[in-house]
């Protein structure tokens, strides 16, 4: 079906694949519970992820109470402390951030942004959520078994993870490993959906190089997930076998309490390689969607095209590819062959280059823009500050020699919280303020949002900046308490107390956000279909919120890239992707190039 309007600029290629028959649910159960609609699945993922994230947040308070005021809270034993550390880390990285960015944002935004009615495998998509929920339930069950949850650190290093010197070394660690395996199964199902939908279900005219960067970020992250999670899967299976069947994949000869254990010949280093082969791409699985989303937030709210879109795409893909050859920078002092240090330090510092380019391009999008200081923009600005800070400390740690004094200190903790905890979470908030009007038809309350933003940004920065300096001092991570040394001054303990207070304040401030989300459902200002005047397809749906099938009777047809902001000669300061060229209103007397001549190569 070719457009009948005249002129080559109106040409849109014919559809390559027939439109698939969309599944229509009949009952309440298949509409809202076991739904195959990606938007419902997205909300299910998001609520579950944020729910377990709140548990992770409470665990962090308990950890901070112990660190800030040791010997005050007698209910936090050393066993408990290591269990809190472990569960907080695993929950936040895997069950919150990965699930929220891919399962939450991916499901909601990908079909809408590429102009599809839904994901290409809706039944598999529905299953993926329930399997994720099962993984969460199994993980939470480990809190209630004898011995409690594992206290082996989120990195679960053997041999200690499965030996009696570590809390939760019985059923606790087994449930953790089983939960991870279930999670990976579910995320493979979801991941196939996201990748294939982007590759196969884009609407007419939506070439890959016309997709918003949000899609590029989530798509690349999903490819990474499909390739990296298997390494964790096999590591988890092998460790479970070591524990339950007495194999020796990771277990050398060990003497424990005077007894020579039956293990022989395994090496703990193998687990570390498998874990970090997954673990490093994992942090980019969290970061790349954040990169993509923040690009769109900045662009829309600065009313300017993202600067260097094609370079941004290549940077995302390049970072994704490079992320597979840097993993052993987590193992510089592991005792692995020291020659690896040269290789991995080089690749790690190389990956800094495309990452820095993205930072420059975000800031260059603000330059010569027309910046609206809306809440999504505020969160984007805060992201840039915290991400540059966190990325820079990564350069310290990535440089192998510098990692020798800094590894396993609070510097590492400060680095990964800033770059993975603070920065992407700021993007999550910005994204929710941005897309809430599309999902609900209402704006989030601005006053509550301003309070939430300033407390969260300034508070989180205040928590993690000083921690770097404790790291330089040599304060170790994963210590139940740090008294009895000759080199750590009293002031460091006072600092820990101060940080704890700030952490509690920031934590409680999130209540305001949660209240805002529910209050605005009924009382928020009505938003209309496109309150931010954005160009991408999710804002051009037939109804708000989008109904089943997303776009009404006709799928949209795309004529341009997603960043037609401030196009010269055009009356409006933005052009939606699906606005036909002959419908564009130009300024009176404008005789320069038409909009379609100004689009970059696609």
């Amino acid at each position, binding site marked *: 079906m070719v457009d009948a309007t005249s002129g080559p600029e109106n040409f849109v290629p014919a559809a390559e694949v027939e439109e698939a028959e969309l599944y229509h649910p009949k009952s309440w159960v298949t509409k809202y519970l076991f739904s195959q609609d990606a938007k419902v699945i997205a909300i299910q993922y998001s609520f579950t992820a944020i729910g377990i994230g709140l548990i992770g947040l409470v665990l962090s308070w308990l950890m901070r109470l112990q660190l800030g005021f040791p010997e005050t809270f007698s209910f936090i034993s050393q066993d408990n402390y290591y269990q809190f550390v472990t569960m907080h880390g695993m929950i936040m990285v895997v069950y919150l951030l990965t699930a929220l960015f891919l399962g939450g944002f991916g499901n909601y935004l990908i079909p809408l942004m590429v102009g599809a009615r839904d994901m290409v495998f809706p039944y598999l998509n529905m299953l993926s959520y329930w399997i994720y929920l099962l993984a969460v339930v199994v993980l939470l069950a480990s809190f209630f078994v004898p011995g409690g949850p594992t206290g082996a650190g989120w990195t679960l290093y053997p041999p200690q993870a499965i030996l009696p010197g570590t809390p939760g070394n019985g059923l606790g660690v087994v449930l953790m490993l089983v939960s991870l395996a279930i999670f990976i199964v579910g995320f493979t199902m979801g991941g196939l959906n996201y990748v294939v939908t982007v590759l196969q279900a884009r609407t007419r005219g939506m070439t890959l190089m016309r997709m918003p960067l949000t899609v590029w970020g989530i798509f690349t992250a999903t490819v990474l997930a499909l390739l990296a999670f298997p390494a964790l899967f096999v590591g988890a299976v092998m460790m479970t076998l070591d524990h339950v069947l007495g194999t020796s994949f990771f277990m050398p000869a060990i003497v424990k309490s005077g007894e020579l254990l039956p293990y022989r010949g395994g090496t703990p280093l193998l687990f570390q390689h498998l874990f970090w082969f997954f673990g490093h791409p994992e942090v980019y699985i969290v970061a790349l969607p954040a990169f993509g989303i923040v690009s769109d937030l900045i662009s829309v709210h600065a009313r*300017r095209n993202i600067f260097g879109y094609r370079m941004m795409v290549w940077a995302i893909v390049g970072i994704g590819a490079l992320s597979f050859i840097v993993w052993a920078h987590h193992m510089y002092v592991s005792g692995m062959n020291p020659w690896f240090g040269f290789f991995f330090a080089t690749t790690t510092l190389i990956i800094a280059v495309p990452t820095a380019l993205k930072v420059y391009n975000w800031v260059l999008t603000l330059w010569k823009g027309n910046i609206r200081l809306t809440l999504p923009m505020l969160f984007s600005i805060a992201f840039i500050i915290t991400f540059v800070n966190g990325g820079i400390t990564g350069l310290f740690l990535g440089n192998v020699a510098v990692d020798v004094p800094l590894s396993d200190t609070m510097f590492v903790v400060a680095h990964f919280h800033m770059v993975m905890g603070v920065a992407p979470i700021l993007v999550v908030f910005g994204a929710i303020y941005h897309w809430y009007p599309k999902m609900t038809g209402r704006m989030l309350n601005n006053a509550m949002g301003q309070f939430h933003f300033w407390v969260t940004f300034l508070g989180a920065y205040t928590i993690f900046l000083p921690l770097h300096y404790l790291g330089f001092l040599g304060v170790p991570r994963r210590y139940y308490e740090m008294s009895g040394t000759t080199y750590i001054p009293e002031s460091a303990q006072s600092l820990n107390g101060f940080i704890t207070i700030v952490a509690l304040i920031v934590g409680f401030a999130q209540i305001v956000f949660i209240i805002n989300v529910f209050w605005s459902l009924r009382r928020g200002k009505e938003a209309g279909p496109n309150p931010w005047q954005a160009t991408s397809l999710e804002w051009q749906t037939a109804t708000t919120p989008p109904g089943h099938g997303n776009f009404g009777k006709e799928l949209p047809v795309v004529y341009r890239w997603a960043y037609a902001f401030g196009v010269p000669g055009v009356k409006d300061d933005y052009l939606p992707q699906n606005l036909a060229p002959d419908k564009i209103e130009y300024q009176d007397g404008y005789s320069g190039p038409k909009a379609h001549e100004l689009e970059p190569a696609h």
Partner: protein
Amino acid sequence: MHVALAVILVLVGTILFHFLSPWWSTPIASNWGAFDDTITITFWITGAVFIAVILFMAYCLIKYRHREDRRAEYEPENKKLEIWLTAITALGVAGLLAPGLFAWNKYINVPEEATSIEVVGQQWQWTFRLPGTDGKLGRTSTKLISPNNPYGIDPKDPNGLDDVLIDDSELHMVKGKPVKVLLRSVDVLHDFYVPQFRAKMDIIPGSVTYFWVTPTKEGAFDIMCFELCGRGHHAMRGTVVVQTQEAYDKWLGDYDTFSKSLEEANNETPTKPVRLAAKERTATR
């Protein structure tokens, strides 16, 4: 406007904190100043980038704040600018990496004149073994560990007979003499770290890892375990005492060799439990 101001205040606050903070590296007591120097270079280069990016962003927030009558400039890309930025960044990154790799090269190549000592880590204590008069450490194996042979030394290896067993948590070193620290664990991963030395390496059960260091200041320094090793990880402490050669030789005389310990074991009741830290010593500070 107030947002740009807040951004600038965050930047200024960060810089002030850096210079006013009392929390900084504990004074170095070893030859690994190259690590501290690389950190300093990194701070200068990345600090400059941090300041430049944040200030530029604040400038944009002021100059380009929303005005109804204004339009953003439409500029999809600028090849020249992007190439320049890539080149400058690559140069900056290379400037960080080069000193770091040189320092790492030094770290993994042990000087000829270094003497070897062995650190044995186990949940949750440190003990040590010195090579004795022959300068060689005897072969060990976890499978040989027993109540009479807590270090697991092979009694058939002649090199091991004169090994000196430091079975408490205080290790002594001679100021100015390079030492290759061999690291062994009998159970789980550990990491031997003295913050003033700036040198560490994980200990892997089933392997022997190493690092080398030359202590440059006399004094007593904390040994901390720097790889999570179970519930007692934070309590796995020891002390390194750096002293003159004379004082060191005097200290050494208090300890048994492996062959002496075997003799004593034969004279004692065989039901002695395995405890590597058999002797209680008050730490000299």
